[in-house]
């Protein structure tokens, strides 16, 4: 009997070790798809609460650069308003009143939110926001900052949401080159937080360093024309059909703190129509 206990004690350790390793590995590979995994994420009220306190402290030190960013955005928006008002006046003069000025794919609302936790130094980076389902956030909504695209909402609790950062190979954002409208997916290779990679641009396209990359509007997550970055350099090996394009991201993920979540009003209508197509 005593020897049996010794035997069990000896091998149960290896068994327990393997059990825990397999459990951890499965959880990691499952990547938050398991029931109850919201409890073990930063959407959890306790963890999010702790982060929102520490976020308030770090925010204080970022005030200056955030102010600069916001005033820059203000200036750009005022400029756009002026241009649009001019156009509106021209259009109004020539068209009947029944014209619909807002196109259906441009009907979006912006929900302001604050980042209370953010990483840039991992391979899979996530962001936590201080807005959640009760503020209208839902999974798959796009998140943008003053300079450009930030990420996509992954999970929401009542008052908090986690966002898959653009710095995470699990997501790709469909982007296009603003100058000539060629589009392709943009993803991150996990190496440098300042650069992402744009692929699937065919080699016959003319590219220039400094070309602006914006969202294509071909998905329901981001409307068209939100800045993503500029081309830093590109290569195209002999025999490759597509360019490898290095894009300098517009958003500085190390100091971003105020973002807006994009609520596309006609998403359900568009997706229902699209899913009715035969595959």
């Amino acid at each position, binding site marked *: 009997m005593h020897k049996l206990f*010794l035997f069990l004690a000896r091998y*149960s*350790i290896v068994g*327990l*070790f393997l059990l*825990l*390793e397999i*459990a*951890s*590995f*499965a*959880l*990691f*590979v*499952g*990547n*938050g798809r398991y029931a109850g*995994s919201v409890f*073990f*994420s*930063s959407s*959890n009220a306790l*963890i999010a609460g*702790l*982060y929102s306190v*520490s976020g308030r402290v*770090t925010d204080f030190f970022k005030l200056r650069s955030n102010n600069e960013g916001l005033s820059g955005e203000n200036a750009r928006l005022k400029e756009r308003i002026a241009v649009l008002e001019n156009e509106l006046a021209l259009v109004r003069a020539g068209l009947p009143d029944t014209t619909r000025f807002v196109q259906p794919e441009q009907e979006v609302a912006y929900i302001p939110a604050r980042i209370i936790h953010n*990483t*840039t*130094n*991992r*391979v*899979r980076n*996530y962001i*936590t926001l201080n807005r959640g389902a009760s503020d209208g956030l839902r999974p798959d909504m796009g998140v943008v900052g003053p300079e450009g695209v930030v990420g996509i909402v992954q999970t929401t609790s009542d008052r908090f949401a*986690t966002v898959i950062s653009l710095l995470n190979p699990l997501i790709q954002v469909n982007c296009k080159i603003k100058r000539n409208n060629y589009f392709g997916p943009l993803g991150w*290779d*996990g*190496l*440098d*937080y300042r650069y992402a990679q744009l692929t699937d641009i065919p080699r016959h396209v003319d590219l220039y360093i400094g070309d602006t990359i914006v969202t294509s509007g071909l998905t329901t997550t981001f409307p068209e024309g939100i800045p993503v970055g500029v081309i830093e350099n590109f290569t195209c090996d002999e025999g490759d059909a597509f360019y490898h394009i290095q894009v300098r991201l517009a958003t500085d993920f*190390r100091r971003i703190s105020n973002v807006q979540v994009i609520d596309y009003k006609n998403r359900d209508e568009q997706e229902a129509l699209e899913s009715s197509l035969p595959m």
Partner: protein
Amino acid sequence: MRRMVFPYLLPLTSHSLLLTLFMLQTVIQNIIRFVVLVLVQVLVLNHVQFLGFVNPYVYVLFILSLPVRTPRWLTLVLSFGLGMAVDAFADTLGLHAFACVLAGFLRDPLVKLLGAGDDNNDFTPSMATLGMGNYVKYASVLVVVHHLAIYFLEAFTLAHFFDTLWHACLAAAVTLVIVLGLQLIKRR
């Protein structure tokens, strides 16, 4: 002596109140260490981004500092719990748990290999108890294993093998410097 087989049953069989109190003190000390290390890790160290990618994981010090007579199953369970706690904050469910369980599993054979822990008395591995040289070996092996596990599992590919290796080793070195520094301060 039967109690040498199941040392964790000691407080139940021992008639020495003093010994029980001593164990209680060790338990409380370790609980405090757990909480403090997790909080420091997730609130401070996870924001340290030396060179943009080096993130020291000093919380592994908890596994290094468990008393040598801790039953192995408890070491494994505590390592798993520690990893899950850090994972919950970092949104990397399972990643740190995997690395911690690995480090927790290798800990006891390593202590034995270094020749400590053979005698029956319980102690916390530190520079004072293991000696400078042995502690450096002990800490380096566990920290490097832990960091390699994290960085390679996180990358989940061997595509950037040398980048990942370099990142892991650099982060392990930074962690090791902090851990050894803490030990040196404590020894005074």
